[in-house]
């Protein structure tokens, strides 16, 4: 039995569910957008916790062999929505903490991209080439960094709250006066081709993206411009490092972003523990969802303390 925890408003979860249905895989869904439909109970016997999910098709009686989780994001500040969703997610996270089966991905292992500069350090320590990075709320420091990087700098959010990278141009230097209001991340701009590497266990899919925008997501998500995404290759040593780094963080699936410049420098930008892989496979045709479903099926644990 595979348990899928997610949001029916998400783009990834419905596609994964459709794939599970098409594969005739036995699965159960917890849709966090309908949080009040579910209850979790926890029993304990000799120090071992047993969890039962009840409600909306979950009877709390069938053992779970593997779990896919991609928590819903509350798109409102309405406490009647955020309260039940938060409580359900808190209870589910407690359950996942002691679940002995594979979890794609454990939320408690998925924090590193909350602080992007911190993750840059982790990427560097894992042997990736990373762009020089500055986080500051001091205008003079940003200007010094700009000069140091020869005027080729992008800026973006320091946390994982959605923000798009922009090139720092002489005409928008006035905006640096706003820095004391909020720290910002500046990074050496590596101009070139974008790559996304999706890791699924020991497998990896490399996708090359071509866009005129410094952040291809702006072109695709906001300006609705076509971008080219196609299957590609990167050196085996880079792929091995991606797989090892994903495992090192305690993750099974990841999406790692790279930029390659004209001189062949391949800089790692960030690792996303909950990648929106459907965006890439929808354009490149790479079977990422299928590989994730296959992983969930093949790695099911025999013993479980989670029942649905």
């Amino acid at each position: 039995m595979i348990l899928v925890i997610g949001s029916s408003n998400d783009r990834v979860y419905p596609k994964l569910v459709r794939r599970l249905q098409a594969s005739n895989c036995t699965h159960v869904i917890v849709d966090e957008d309908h949080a009040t439909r579910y209850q979790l109970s926890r029993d304990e016997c000799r120090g071992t916790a047993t969890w039962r999910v009840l409600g909306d098709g979950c009877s709390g009686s069938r053992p779970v062999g593997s779990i896919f989780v991609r928590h819903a994001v509350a798109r409102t500040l309405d406490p009647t929505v955020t309260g039940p969703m938060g409580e359900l997610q808190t209870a589910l996270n407690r359950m996942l903490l002691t679940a002995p089966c594979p979890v794609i991905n454990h939320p408690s292992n998925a924090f590193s991209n909350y602080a992007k500069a911190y993750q840059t350090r982790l990427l560097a320590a894992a042997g990736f080439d990373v762009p020089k990075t500055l986080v500051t709320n001091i205008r003079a420091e940003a200007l010094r960094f700009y000069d140091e990087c020869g005027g080729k700098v992008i800026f973006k959010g320091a946390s994982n709250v959605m923000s798009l990278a922009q090139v720092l141009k002489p005409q928008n230097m006035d905006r640096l006066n706003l820095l004391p209001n909020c720290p910002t991340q500046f990074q050496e701009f590596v101009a070139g081709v974008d790559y996304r590497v999706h890791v699924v266990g020991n497998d990896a899919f490399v996708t090359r993206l071509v866009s005129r925008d410094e952040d291809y997501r702006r072109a695709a998500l906001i300006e609705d411009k076509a971008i080219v995404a196609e299957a590609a290759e990167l050196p085996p040593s880079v792929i091995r490092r991606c797989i090892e780094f994903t495992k090192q963080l305690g993750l099974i699936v990841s999406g790692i972003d790279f930029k390659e410049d004209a001189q062949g420098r391949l800089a790692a930008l960030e690792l996303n523990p909950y990648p929106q892989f459907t965006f890439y496979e929808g354009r490149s045709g790479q079977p990422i969802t299928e590989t994730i479903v296959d992983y969930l099926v093949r790695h099911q644990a025999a013993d479980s303390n989670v029942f649905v």
Partner: protein
Amino acid sequence: MILVIADPYDTLATKVAGGLGGPVLRGSEADLFTAPFSIKIDHEKVWGTLRLHGEMVNLADLTAVFLRPYRTWWPGPEYGAQDQMFVYHETIASWFTVFDSVPCPVINRFGLGWWLQDHSYPERLRTELAAILNVPASDSGPPAGAFGKLNPTGPDPDARSVYLVGQSIISTGKLLDTAIRSSMTAVRDWQKRNGISFCRLDFESGAFPRLKTVEVFPLLDHEPARFVDRIAAALIEEVR
């Protein structure tokens, strides 16, 4: 230079700052989160600066950080609700990176789970430590409906509490001290792995101790002054 970030009324922080005998720069979390700073990363090299109360400090010159932020700071009403949330996360992510990066001892170098108020963070610590100490974790755990902030707590009146400061074990009883001391190598590894040099362990009272709570931000308001002095002395030792 030792950096102490704590509420002005935090008695423990005052005792630690007073006992260190060197230059101490102290501020509240509101001081910290609005302070000018920079942190630069060039592959594995990290450096930066911080200006607090007008004093500029090179992060490399910090010899220790004693960190006790209640995490009650929130951007001011001059921002709209959405901007407040954005500024809050940008600020927390930035300062987490700073404290993770400084090479000196940081007590405590809290994990992202703590900064993000993740309720499975204390539970994970409790599960790990219970396994190390070879004691069961308590049945109860956090309340099933727990949601919202992870507030610091004082000692549980229904529990036997033990404070861990580095290798120092501070408690009123001896039974648990022996059990912890016999696992000290693994406990030290756990401390290093999680960045938690200072915590309080609450064990259920009874013939067979069960680990009820691991509190990484122990409040000491209800502990006797001499007890607080012992903890402060151990913290000073750990920082040195």
